[in-house]
């Protein structure tokens, strides 16, 4: 199982490398959104808005980034993978790979956002830890949704519609931790919330692995 997951991830990575325009597209989407926000807010936002805006931008970019995974595979290649590995391994590889991609996206988004909108965060370490964990948790919840949405007729609309109710609990926890890190809370004070975040991510991973075998067949 582990070997299959690693092999599938290597496959994803080399495909991504060969066709760089897909990820670059998502990155450009992120940069454009940040810049639109910068221009429409005149670069001056209250701290509370800074936090919420950052996560909303990241959420929309990640909906795009995660959805492209299953869409890119194409109808004919998917059945072939399932002759090589179990559906659970395919899902697991997708989640881990998406987590990596989203981490990359979150960090570059954060850099760009800081450059134009300033950075009021007082506990930078907690903010970044929450950013990475949040990206991983989002990828766990959204990967399953993308597996469903990519099978339907209008995947982009469905990704949002199906994703929001599923992701909202995660997003609320992440925004809460992030807001307190801006005010300089210590890691110890936010330990409980981080645990809730990990719990939600864990449940998403388990559910995705249990349910994916039912939907991979055409």
């Amino acid at each position, binding site marked *: 199982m582990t070997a299959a997951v690693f092999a599938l991830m290597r496959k994803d990575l080399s495909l991504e490398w060969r066709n760089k325009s897909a990820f670059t597209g998502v990155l450009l989407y992120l940069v454009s959104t940040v810049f639109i926000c910068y221009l429409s807010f005149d670069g001056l936002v209250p701290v509370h808005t800074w936090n919420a805006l950052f996560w909303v931008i990241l959420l929309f970019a990640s909906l795009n980034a995660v959805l492209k995974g299953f869409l890119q595979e194409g109808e004919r290649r998917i059945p072939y993978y399932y002759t090589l590995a179990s559906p659970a391994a395919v899902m697991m590889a997708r989640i881990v790979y998406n987590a990596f991609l989203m981490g990359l996206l979150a960090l570059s988004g954060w850099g760009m956002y800081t450059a134009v909108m300033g950075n009021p965060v007082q506990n930078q370490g907690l903010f970044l830890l929450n950013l990475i964990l949040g990206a991983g948790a989002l990828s766990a919840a959204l990967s399953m949704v993308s597996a469903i949405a990519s099978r339907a007729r209008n995947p982009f609309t469905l990704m949002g519609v199906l994703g929001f109710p599923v992701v909202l*609990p995660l997003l609320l926890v992440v925004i809460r931790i992030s807001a307190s890190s801006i005010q300089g809370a210590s890691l110890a004070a936010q330990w409980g919330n981080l645990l809730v975040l990990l719990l*939600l991510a864990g449940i998403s991973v388990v559910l995705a692995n249990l*349910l994916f075998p*039912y939907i991979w067949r055409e």
Partner: protein
Amino acid sequence: MGPFRNWWWKFAGLALLFYVVAGGFLFDVPQLPVVRESIRNIYFHVGMWFSMMFILAVSLVFSMRYLRHARPEDDLKALAAVKTGLVFGFLGLLTGMVWAHFTWGRFWVNDPKLNGAVVGLLAYLAYLVLRGSVEGEQKRGRLAAVYNLFAFVLYFVFIMILPRLGVSSIHPGTDGNPALATGDLDPAMRKVFFPAIMAWFIMAWWVFTVFCRIDRLRYRVQELLENEPTWK
């Protein structure tokens, strides 16, 4: 005697509901500050939310059965249950808003429990949109059932962790079970409250069976149309 043998529970439900409406509006209730006479809404608002949760749990069971056996009836029943749940959810939302208007002064307040309720309804509306955008009966059934399970579990975890997040709520009841703490319900109100819950459960089940029948007939018609002889 024929119809009554199968329908007695519908008559029982109707009788209970008449009793609840009459008793709910006529019997004495304790006069509490702020809430006052609006406490009578507890017989309607809470009953509707409870029956929504009940019927959504029914939908979950049918979705699980569909994933196990792949029988079209199970999928149709899960869909009918979600539709019923949405009807009762919106009724619960409306009665809650009327109540909020009289006790909190506004139709909507920014409260974790209220917002949680909306997220739940959004998830089930998304379920309907998903069904509408998938071709192929089996594929639609499987995707819908999987989303039903995924969203239900995450939503209930969400409801459970909400109090942990330290967001205070002005809505009565703790940890996702508003008004289940019947311990603090006045004894005089219990003799309407429990029949009211019963009555709304029966109503929900009745509406569910009606939706089931409509969907089954629609499915039959579809089948007949597809097998239509070509000479026509």
